């Protein structure tokens, strides 16, 4: 790695004042900065729009391969025109060469896939690496011929946004408009291509032609993006904003717009940061901004973000937990041969043993139920307990029927009683269904039903009721069935 490092002394330019930053933010920091900012924003829009479709088509890394395939084209175009026309540095010529080899590379990937023996990831990796290798060989040749000095080709590898000029901005604008227009016009067809190409083919959508069109658009973005972000990072404008946008929505139309927005924002932020901080290469900073936006999206996006998922899960567990408490109360009362109704007190300790809750969990759940007005807490007086037929649990050294637990007790309110009845009804409906239709042993249905009862919708409940009523197992809709298993058999010792 010694070769990596050469010594040089470059003075650090003084940082910019805050007023400068404000001017940059408002596009008023001079002509060049404005051109660069506008260009990168346009590139971000185009990349976001096209990248969304490429991502959903499963071609995200295709753009990476295409980007690397531009290198031999750049070098070849330079060599050919330097030799024959003496005008190797013309931008249009270089970009034409880049597009040509990128196109050849894309076709090579397609050909290898058609060949059938190597899989898609291998095909992409092979084409990417070999084309880039050829490019490096050509570049080393360019570097050593007289008058070569890489011909300024280095700026295409890492990008040199500062050198963007007004005609580049116009070009980027045209490409962004073209990309948006194509996507808008062919939206239905492209959507089919992304989600169900086989179905699309049966509808007469030219799937292969659309794939080619998509590849062509990706290529266009990559080639015009070379100057701004460079060929190693050009793929980022096509992958990161769409990947971030995917987290915000489940709808393609929205995703395309969000991706364009994220792309524009990262282009803007990247240009501003690199203009206001010394030694911050624009292309790389744009990619870092896009990466930061992706990270933020991953955290806070409401549709598929991590926080949203955690919240959803917590909310589900909260609801399920409270439903468990309600059912436990109901079933304890039922087991005591008492009518499960509001006002009857169940000692807290007994409730806890019902499901072996941890103390903190049960307190939390009861607090939630109390806050929603489903239960009340009260004190239980110690005293003899009427022995019931089934008896009570005799763990913890309690002799049966000798002493009652004193301390806190829980009673259902009217509202809680009706909620509990509904929960128990769903549970029993599913249990009975499992016993009678899925032929499960009655002793095993309780846990299985536990997994599904909270997710039974109104409609499914009505279906189950109709089914069981038709078979004469349910007296009337809304009735609570008897439990198909002894209630106090669980949890086991």
């Amino acid at each position: 790695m010694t070769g990596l490092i050469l010594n040089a002394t470059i003075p650090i330019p003084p940082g910019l004042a805050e007023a400068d930053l404000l001017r940059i933010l408002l596009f008023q920091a001079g002509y060049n900065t404005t051109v660069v900012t506008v260009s990168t924003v346009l590139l971000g829009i185009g990349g976001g729009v096209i990248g969304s479709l490429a991502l959903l088509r499963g071609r995200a890394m295709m753009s990476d391969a295409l980007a690397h395939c531009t290198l031999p084209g750049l070098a070849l175009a330079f060599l050919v025109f330097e030799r024959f026309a003496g005008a190797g540095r013309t931008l249009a010529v270089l970009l034409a060469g880049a597009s040509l080899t990128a196109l050849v590379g894309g076709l090579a990937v397609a050909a290898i896939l058609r060949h059938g023996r190597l899989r898609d990831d291998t095909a992409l990796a092979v084409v990417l690496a070999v084309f880039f290798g050829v490019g490096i060989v050509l570049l080393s040749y360019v570097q050593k011929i007289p008058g070569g000095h890489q011909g300024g080709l280095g700026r295409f590898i890492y990008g040199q946004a500062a050198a963007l000029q007004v005609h580049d901005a116009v070009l980027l604008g045209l490409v962004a408009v073209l990309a948006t227009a194509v996507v808008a016009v062919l939206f239905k067809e492209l959507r089919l291509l992304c989600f169900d190409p086989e179905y699309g083919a049966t509808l007469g959508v030219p799937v292969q032609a659309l794939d080619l069109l998509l590849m062509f658009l990706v290529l266009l973005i990559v080639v015009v993006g070379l100057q701004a972000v460079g060929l190693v990072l050009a793929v980022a404008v096509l992958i990161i904003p769409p990947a971030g946008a995917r987290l915000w929505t489940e709808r393609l139309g929205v995703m395309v717009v969000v991706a364009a927005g994220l792309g524009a924002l990262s282009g803007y932020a990247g240009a501003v940061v690199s203009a206001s901080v010394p030694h911050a290469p624009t292309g790389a900073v744009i990619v870092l901004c896009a990466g930061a936006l992706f990270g933020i999206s991953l955290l806070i996006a409401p549709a598929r973000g991590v926080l949203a998922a955690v919240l959803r899960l917590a909310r589900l567990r909260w609801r399920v937990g409270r439903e468990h408490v309600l059912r436990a109360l109901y079933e304890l009362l039922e087991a005591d041969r008492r009518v499960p109704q509001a006002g009857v007190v169940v000692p807290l300790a007994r409730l806890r043993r019902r499901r072996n809750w941890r103390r903190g969990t049960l307190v939390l759940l009861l607090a939630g139920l109390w806050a929603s007005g489903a239960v009340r807490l009260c004190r239980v007086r110690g005293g003899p307990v009427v022995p019931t037929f089934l008896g009570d649990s005799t763990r913890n050294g309690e002799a049966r029927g000798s002493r009652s637990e004193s301390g806190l007790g829980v009673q259902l309110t009217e509202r809680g009683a009706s909620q509990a009845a509904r929960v128990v009804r769903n549970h029993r409906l599913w249990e009975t269904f499992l016993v009678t239709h899925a032929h499960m042993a009655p002793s095993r249905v309780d846990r299985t039903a536990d997994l599904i009862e909270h997710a039974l919708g109104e409609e499914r409940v009505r279906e189950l009721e109709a089914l069981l009523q038709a078979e004469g197992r349910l007296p009337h809709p809304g009735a609570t069935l008897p439990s198909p298993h002894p209630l106090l058999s669980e949890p086991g010792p």
Partner: protein
Amino acid sequence: MSDAWYQFVSQDLPAMLTGTFAVLACGVLGNFLLLRRLALLGDAISHSVLPGLVGGFLLAGSRGRLPMFAGAAGAGLAAVVLVELVRRLARLESGAAMGVVFTVFFALGVVLIERAHARGVDLDPDCVLHGMLEAVFWFPPRQWDQLLSPATLALVPRELWTTGAVAGIAALFVTLFFKELRVATFDPELATALGFNARTLHLVLMLLVAAAVVAAFEAVGAILVVAMLVCPPAIARLLTDRLAAQVWMSALVSVVIGVGGYALAGWVMPRILNGPDLNAAGMMATLAGVLLLAALLFSPRYGWLTRRWHTRCPVRPPA
């Protein structure tokens, strides 16, 4: 020793051996990446190594070898873990997850290089892409009989030692754990049932890939590492259906690519073009591409032309 021989021994031989060892280490390990559909992971790792290299250098404040190597390997592994994390959390396909992670890592590396630039240290990003194979020199004494004395061997460039060691470790690993690797590659559940942990083996493999990438990185450059990881196995896969044969063949192809690529870049092409030496690492990738094309066309079983030939004159059933 004549001048021509001395030039060969001091310049060409070490560079050629370094390149060949780098290709060998990557090529042998690449077989298992290819079969697990992780071919692009090599691409991701080789880009992600950059910030680790620069960061290791900046933290240590010197060109010490260990911090840069550790930083690079750490960044490579961090990228692998992050790709998996992004893939699961964002529910993206693995290609997209790689694209997100490696571009961000590479961009971070480019920014770090520029910042180092500002502090008066010039890290040349081009070497990251091109490799520095031509800068591997060995200056032994000019007498043949002293060539293998300990004092001379101490002068052997450390790039050669590193790539040689990694190639040796990779070969040893694949030989020793061949059965386990085969089972874990094709049927991880069976591997677990047989009583060894396929995940651990996978992790060790990834660790070795990261080491091979880092070691090969300085020799052949970031993107050519991808060629070294993917091309020899892909060529071998076109030629055989058996894993053992594929691994042996990929090793052979690696040696051909390493030696042939260097020879083409250093001797053959300059003579033909009557021009300067060409980039050796790039030429290795180019040669790999040519060999791959040949395999795609002429492989006895899977070749495009061979298959067409067979369909045109089908084998007659025995009478």
